[in-house]
């Protein structure tokens, strides 16, 4: 998704763009995501600023092209964060107040308003906060259609091609000259690393240290349900704490949402277990229990499938965006953890600005790719 957005904005900026992927379009984390475009889970700070910019860019994209809006299943459905007890609710309110100061629309709702917003919610919930800016897209379609738009603007797509080396000049500060792939060399004065969970490997090929790590998540998919069974992205206040957590242990806080196609998605657990693809019943049981806790009506609904993905994260939970001061010509756009779909547009836009030498719209200091030091001799 992030690579698709980078190619899209680069091609639109008039750059000759080649998009290379080791698999198909949307074959990595994108294809295993939920398509969250969220501000509700973000604390005030650089990530929230990037999220607000990205949401505005998403909004503009689908406003310019209503066909794209349908094609990517864009829905400005809003997020609803609910608290089950008064203590949790007070913390949520306090969090929302800080978000408002950062430019987020956050509306406190009481128990009765909850029922009218989400008639199928469990009656015992004390209240919550509505985030009208939260949106949803179907992530694979979003990536594929941005790639298609990028190709219309002149970009070349090369799938099933593995980058095996980043070519650098002997002198000139080791400038990037392009990449070597399984099918030959591609010459380019700039290389954007948008390789998601493989981002650390591409950086290493260029001689730069970037500690991208995987954080596993499971998503459950139900049979199709009548429209508006679940109207918003609904999750418990605990989710925010989980997203920000440094713990390696399993954390679950179910995010429940309907989709344009009918099934309800229930995400997402967070575990640091490397690239272990084994299905974890405990993780899935907790997700299911929380979802039924929020929406008792889902108890009898069949789960038809589950999938897992690996969120690429960096130790401080912020992505790496922009030029790498250590390797002239190397730019990064990776490490977005579970927010890559939402943050893709802003990231692509900012990377394209860097590529054509414009001053980026946001200060990229917090996203500097070299902020983790050299570690190994890079």
């Amino acid at each position: 998704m992030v690579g698709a957005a980078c190619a899209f904005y680069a091609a639109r900026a008039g750059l000759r763009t080649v998009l290379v992927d080791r698999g198909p379009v949307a074959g990595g984390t994108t294809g295993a995501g939920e398509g969250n475009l969220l501000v509700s889970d973000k604390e005030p700070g650089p990530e929230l600023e990037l999220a607000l910019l990205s949401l505005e860019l998403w909004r503009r994209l689908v406003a310019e092209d209503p066909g794209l809006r349908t094609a990517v299943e864009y829905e400005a459905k809003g997020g609803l964060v609910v608290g089950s007890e008064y203590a949790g609710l007070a913390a949520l309110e306090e969090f929302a107040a800080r978000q408002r100061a950062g430019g987020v629309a956050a509306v406190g709702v009481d128990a009765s308003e909850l029922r009218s917003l989400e008639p199928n919610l469990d009656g015992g919930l004390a209240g919550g906060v509505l985030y009208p800016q939260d949106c949803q897209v179907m992530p694979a379609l979003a990536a594929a259609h941005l790639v298609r738009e990028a190709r219309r603007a002149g970009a070349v797509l090369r799938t099933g091609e593995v980058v095996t080396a980043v070519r650098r000049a002997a002198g000139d500060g080791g400038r990037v000259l392009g990449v070597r792939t399984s099918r030959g060399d591609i010459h380019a004065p700039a290389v954007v690393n948008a390789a998601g969970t493989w981002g650390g490997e591409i950086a290493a090929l260029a001689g730069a240290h970037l500690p991208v790590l995987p954080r596993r998540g499971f998503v459950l998919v139900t049979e199709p349900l009548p429209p508006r069974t679940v109207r918003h992205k609904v999750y418990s206040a605990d989710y925010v704490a989980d997203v920000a957590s440094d713990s390696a242990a399993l954390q679950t806080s179910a995010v429940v949402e309907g989709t344009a196609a009918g099934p309800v998605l229930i995400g997402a657990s967070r575990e640091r277990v490397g690239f272990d693809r084994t299905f974890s019943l405990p993780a899935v049981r907790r997700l299911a229990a929380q979802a039924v806790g929020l929406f008792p009506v889902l108890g009898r609904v069949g789960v038809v499938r589950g999938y897992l993905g690996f969120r690429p994260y960096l130790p401080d939970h912020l992505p790496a965006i922009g030029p790498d001061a250590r390797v002239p010509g190397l730019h990064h756009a990776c490490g977005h953890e579970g927010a890559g779909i939402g943050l893709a547009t802003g990231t692509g836009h900012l990377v394209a600005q860097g590529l054509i030498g414009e001053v980026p719209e946001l200060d990229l200091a917090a996203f500097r790719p070299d902020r983790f030091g050299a570690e190994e001799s890079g």
Partner: protein
Amino acid sequence: MRVARVRMRMRKPVGSEGRQERGGRAGAGAVVVVGAGPAGVAAAVCAADQGVRVVLVDSAVRAGGQFYRQPDARWGARRPQVLHHGWRTWQRLTARLDAHLADGQVTHLAERHVWFVERAGGDGFVVHALGGSGQDRPETVRGDAVLLATGAYEKVLPFPGWTLPGVVTAGGAQAMLKGGLVLPPGRTVVVAGTGPLLMPVAAGLAAAGARVGALIESAGPGRLAWGAAKVAGHPAKLAEGARYAAALVWRGVPVRTGHAVVAAHGSVRLEAVTVAALDAEGRVRAGTGRRIACDALAVGHGLLPHTGLAGALGCRIEETAYGGWGVAVDGEQRTDLPGVWAAGEASGVGGAELALAEGEIAGRSIAARLRGREPDRRGCAAAAGTRAGLRAFARVIDGVYGPPAQWAERVGDDTVVCRCEEVPASAVRSAVAGLGATDLRSVKLLTRAGMGWCQGRVCAPGVAGVAGCAWSPASRVLAQPVPLAVLAREEGAAP
């Protein structure tokens, strides 16, 4: 073994949530066999003979699987054997099974749908199943070892009109016959596709009183003759084929090899099919199309193994040396995951007799390995010889049959390729041409083909063909839909 048996009998009472736990902590020497077809029953009997406690879990009412499917006792069928060959072998095996059921060495849990096999952290396995008429009553079975004998299902490739009511799978038609159902007299059925299943299906339908309009086999006469020469070393198999062929001649069923059904027609339901001759490349020979009026079309293109449970467990799944895919197994039918065995069609499609041999080998291996011993090679020698011969035979069969190379060209843009999600072929083609999909997973993500209730079980080979990409068994985490409330229930403490 005694200890395990005592524990088996100490069943937990039905809990407040309706959960039942069976098998107890089975201790050393209990195996859970998933699937009560030829492989599962053969393994269960052989393991039980050697003192292993066996819990046999199966979705059907009675043991037998697809091949030895028996009419429900309520139908009161008097001669189920007319639809089966090898019936005596099966009778002997079920007599042994009945003896073990009587002495408590084997427990048969019928009408249970297994949705997941869980590794209980170095401590055996927990098999999760759903029972009850609504498949919503959770049940777990523990074992020190698991045998996956999950069988196969039928591959059906799309063609214009294949979604019309009246079009059924060849295996489905056979299952209905074996289940004791009889067609209304005077109805015309066409049997079409490819594979060794078509002849017995056509013969069975004719014997049951249906008018079989034609048997349409896409493999050409040249391939069939090559296959017949190759299997000269299997006189029993040749005789079996000759018997079916003779039955078809006797019933006046026209057999067309090197032909295919290129379209099914009808406004509300099936009324006719168009059959055409194929050239050497599998393309339709111009001007050979002929319409056959019919009420039903039984169509099949071979069998695919059920590998879902194995895949979710993390077992390796590969292309077998004798054609098609299967759970990877060694000479003892062990998968690459310690404690997990696979036998029968699940480890590679090759028919009921091969499944019986593999089941026997697996059962003996399980009994030995649970005691920390090597299996007795001499005891397994006969079954191993049978297995080698039948795998060689399966390889020939795989070489003879197979859908015509160019079948996907005949799938019109408006033909629905995924029925659950109603995805037309055009959507699959444009995902490949315009959106950068290059494999089955990305086609699914970009078109929803294979995302519905059946999870691509029916449509995936067809979608792959239309997309022009390779098919391989999809990795699925749940072998079948599970109610969210069942998933949500926390695991009860082990007894």
